[in-house]
């Protein structure tokens, strides 16, 4: 995230003293020699876009979170200022804390463990197979990833349906309502199935960067496949693992598609935070409260992102000093 944020590009330019006209690269970092004013003109469109589509909605959310604003009723006409009331309510509401707990379960099992491990294993075991097999596998896994969410949800409903579902037909079970009896397990398996493609592609690329000579040396020294994996491949792809985990964690944290499978039910048993926010803000019409929880979700995302970036930084620092 920091590498793409516009101010990272602005900072070195802005720090330069303003030259009168474009000149040769200055030692202070004004590499292009544009000067402050021109540089600002170049980044202005990006800044405006970021301001309009990122900063403004975020601030707007903070503002709405301080009101008892609602979609209908008298609170829609004249919302009153409730300060931190929404946050106090949310943090004291067992529905919110349960939803947070379910979200952590969902992210932990489906993304951090599920997609990561399965993606890596697929990439690892199929790296040496015949190109045809690998391509077929790639297509199958990718298909799960690129199909539109609503289509996929419909397919899964048909798979899990209680009366005429494919799964019940295969297993010979009758009248087994998978999405109702095991809602969390269903959405976790669903998300692993759906999201593994990304991890697989990223790890396949990462494994390719492991120098063949290292692997051959290890093999000649008598390392078993498991030892090669542990001592040669994993150290090389560590940074990829972190990056991948960061990305899929954030995506899964904000993932809404479980709603299409279970609707957060039964009895809120699969109501992860994005679903909880949708139900409160849009269905229930509590826009102020919904904004407040959205901000809490944003903060949770930031905490995760910062933690990962810290890890990445210490790693690159270790490597630099090693």
């Amino acid at each position, binding site marked *: 995230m920091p590498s793409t944020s516009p101010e990272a590009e602005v900072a070195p330019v802005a720090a330069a003293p303003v030259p009168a006209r474009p000149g040769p690269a200055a030692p202070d970092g004004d590499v292009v020699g544009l000067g402050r004013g021109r540089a600002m003109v170049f980044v202005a469109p990006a800044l405006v876009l970021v301001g309009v589509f990122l900063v403004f909605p975020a601030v707007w959310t903070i503002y709405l979170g301080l009101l008892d604003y609602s979609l*209908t*009723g008298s609170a*829609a*006409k004249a919302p009153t200022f409730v300060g931190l009331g929404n946050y106090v309510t949310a943090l004291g509401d067992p529905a919110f804390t349960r939803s947070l707990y379910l979200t952590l379960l969902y992210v932990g099992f489906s993304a951090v463990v599920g997609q990561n491990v399965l993606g890596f294993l697929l990439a690892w075991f199929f790296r040496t197979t015949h190109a045809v097999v690998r391509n077929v596998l790639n297509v199958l896994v990718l298909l799960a990833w690129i199909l539109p969410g609503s289509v996929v949800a419909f397919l899964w409903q048909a798979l899990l349906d209680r009366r005429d579902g494919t799964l019940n037909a295969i297993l010979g079970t009758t009248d087994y309502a998978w999405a109702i009896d095991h809602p969390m397990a269903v959405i976790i398996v669903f998300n692993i199935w759906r999201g593994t493609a990304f991890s697989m592609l990223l790890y396949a690329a990462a494994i390719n960067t492991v120098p063949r000579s290292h692997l051959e040396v290890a093999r000649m020294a008598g390392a078993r496949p498991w030892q090669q994996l542990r001592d040669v491949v994993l150290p090389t792809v560590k940074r990829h693992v972190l990056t991948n985990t960061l990305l899929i964690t954030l995506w899964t944290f904000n993932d809404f598609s479980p709603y299409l499978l279970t609707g957060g039910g039964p*009895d809120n048993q699969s109501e992860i935070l994005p679903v909880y926010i949708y139900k409160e803000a849009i269905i229930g019409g509590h826009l102020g409260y919904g904004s407040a929880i959205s901000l809490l979700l944003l903060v949770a995302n930031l905490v995760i992102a910062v933690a990962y970036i810290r890890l990445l930084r210490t790693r690159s620092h270790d490597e630099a000093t090693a």
Partner: protein
Amino acid sequence: MRLSRRAVLLTSGTAVSLVLTGCVGAKDSGAKANPSANASAKDVTLVISANDVAGGKNAAEAAWITDSVIPGFVAAQKAKGVTAKVTFNGSGVEDEQYKTKLELNLKTGSGADVFAADGIWLGELASAGYVKPLDDVVGAPAKSWDGWQQISKAVQQNLAFKDQLYGIPNGTDGRVLYFNKSLFSKAGLPADWQPKSWADIISAGQALKKLPGVNPIQINAGVPMGEATSAQGFLPLLAGTGQPLYNDSEAKWQGATEGVKDVLKFYQQVYGSGLGDKRVQQDKAGRDQSFADFSKGKIGILAEGDYFWRSVICPSKKDCGTTSMANRNDVVGWAKIPAMTPGKGVNGQDFVSVSGGSGWLLSPKTKYPQQAWELMAFMASKDMQTALSKAQIRISARADVNDATLTNDPLLSFISKEVLPITTYRPSDEKYNEVSLAIQEATGKVVTGTSPDEAAKAYQASLQKAVGAEHVSGG
């Protein structure tokens, strides 16, 4: 250095956003509608929206709008020298989703000029300023419309809020218990079954339970069923315990009272002893599932409104799709919903019901208020309502239409003669829908095994959160 620049950027961004922000709400709410806007326009564009869709939900009404209303209205306007372009914007989704879409449209000032809405949403919509009284939007023509004489006060109330009319009702309804006569005869129960108490329903359920593959009783529960849980299940039962949900004179909602606990205990009797299918109540598409099950003869007793009779299990495959029942008139029986025990119902009644009704409202932001009103009045005219009743008989808002059509349908004449006189209506208060959600949650909890007392306690707490502790009785 870098940090401080970041801070500057953040602060300036915040400042800009705050300036742009202004304040939410309050926009337009003071603005007066102008009834005479574009009143003499020669080119008029109007949009109708409803939760009807060709080939899906309420297909008969969708066909009525596109095949009768629109051509008829366009022709009538043409006779006056006005070119009218009317389009129909249909949906076929759960009512809650339609409501959300409607509210978002009204909030942003977009959407249809004339739209269908359930009467129980009116309190919310009017309090938010999304809809305005006919007097303000249309003015004199709405007051002097001759159709009002045909619409009873009770039905008009469905689209009235704080003594002002907001639209034209399109009818009313009533809830009964439907039962499958062939299952009943197999279980040794009479074809003219009429339970006198809740215990009679339970004992019929126990007899039906002996039949294989049959789900004896379907009383809607839980959040996925939405308003159908409250209107078809909880509220008729609550009316059978003697007190209405909302006490007008005290401005209090029933919290964890004895009546509420009795109702929840009844749910426990049904779903705790295998007399009902728990999972149908938990399924996201549970209500549709219950419709499908009943139409296949797998449900013994089911509580629903007349909507179920005319739009779900009608004999015509074209109108009712996969849930149509070709032998409906022979197989399906109906009975009034009994009070808990005889005489225990509201006003000392033996039998109770719940009614509501939807209707047509117009957006206060319409560019053509007079023409939109003319369109609404045209839809509610005797000719158009008669045409609708041919596609699908229902209890129309108009007495003259009902007199001519209801005799053709045994259930609808039963409801209008036997049920409407003893029925109850839901409060039009803007908080009703939140209270209804608390009801859905409480019944859902009982279905999944929470004790009635505990579910009542949780219901009391959500109710206090929604309407304020001073407006909740009991507990």
